[in-house]
């Protein structure tokens, strides 16, 4: 339904035709095509699940479930409607949502613990690597504190470079909602990631 008519000429970086061929082969009974599809999409799908669930075991479980579901329902995939990647993302997100609906309280508790851990003095790693992993850990802790919907929007936008149209598709919401979720996430994360009182901006934005 949603063709690329939204003014952007951005297309999903999906390896389009290759994926289509793999899907066709898989549907035709070629077992190796399933493996090839997995190899192609597992890293980003896992990364998506991990960024949303922030827990390795849960992310692995959801990644597996998502592939099993996708492979069993491969016939239902409609290439005219969405890219295979966004279809997989849609499947994974709904499973992540079930997961954090179940485990939300724990997620919040852990986030508080981690918040404290991150405030602790740095280790003696080489500086650059430390700064890098520091930044990563800080963002991870900040994502943990974000409302799930805002986290989803941020992860799809920045973790996977999806357009707002694609984010809307995966999150099953209007495009304007996707945009405002990213904006709200920016606002929430500014407080968590940027040093307080770093700039004159704060004063300007406070009112």
């Amino acid at each position: 339904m949603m063709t690329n008519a939204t003014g952007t000429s951005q297309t999903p970086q999906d390896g389009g035709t290759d994926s289509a061929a793999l899907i066709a082969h898989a549907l035709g009974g070629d077992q190796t095509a399933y493996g090839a599809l997995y190899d192609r999409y597992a890293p980003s799908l896992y990364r998506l699940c991990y960024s949303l669930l922030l827990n390795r075991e849960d992310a692995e479980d959801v990644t597996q479930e998502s592939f099993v579901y996708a492979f069993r329902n491969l016939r239902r995939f409609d290439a005219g409607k969405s890219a295979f990647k966004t279809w997989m993302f849609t499947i994974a997100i709904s499973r992540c949502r079930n997961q954090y609906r179940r485990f939300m309280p724990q997620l919040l508790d852990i986030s508080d613990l981690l918040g404290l851990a991150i405030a602790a003095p740095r280790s003696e790693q080489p500086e650059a690597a430390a700064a890098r992993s520091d930044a990563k850990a800080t963002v991870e802790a900040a994502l943990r504190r974000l409302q799930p919907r805002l986290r989803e929007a941020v992860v799809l936008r920045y973790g996977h470079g999806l357009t707002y149209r694609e984010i809307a598709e995966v999150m099953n919401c209007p495009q304007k909602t996707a945009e405002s979720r990213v904006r709200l996430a920016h606002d929430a994360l500014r407080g968590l990631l940027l040093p307080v009182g770093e700039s004159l901006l704060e004063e300007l934005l406070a009112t």
Partner: protein
Amino acid sequence: MSTLGEMTADSVEDMTTEPIMTCRDVQRALPAYLHRELPPSQRGQVARHLAGCVRCDAHYQAQREIARRLEATVPLIGRGTEAGRFELMWRGIAAQIAARRRQISMTSLMTSGAALMVVLLLALAWAPTASQAWVPTQPTAFHGDGRSTPVAVAYSSEDTSSATLTPPLQSNYAPAVGATDEP
């Protein structure tokens, strides 16, 4: 992957057709503006507005700063997973798919087998009445009449079939059959 490049106030667009954007509109449009997903007409309007509105520009600078930060760090989250983990996940997936496939072929085999049996038994039941010796599973001959009517024989054959074919004929029994097949 869109980039957060410098936003140059391009002036190719027309300002006549678009309705005037308020500060609120501009701030709402900032995410799309940041990622260059705004239609050109609005894009120009936002750029001009930002050039003349300190408040909105402050919002823009703040959003851009955090967006840069996120673009550099969010892709790192969940990365660095060893190949071994992916291999393990794949084995799990492959096993589940294979189990399901076996289950499906098993049940279809059972159902088609059952159907075949029913057809066979019915065929036997409707077979020439003379071939009584040919029906060993038939419990007892009917009232010594010797002339069993088709209806009566069909009934008794149904009896036998349900005795021998209970599992596949109960549709909800099938998963249990498949379950014995799981690794």
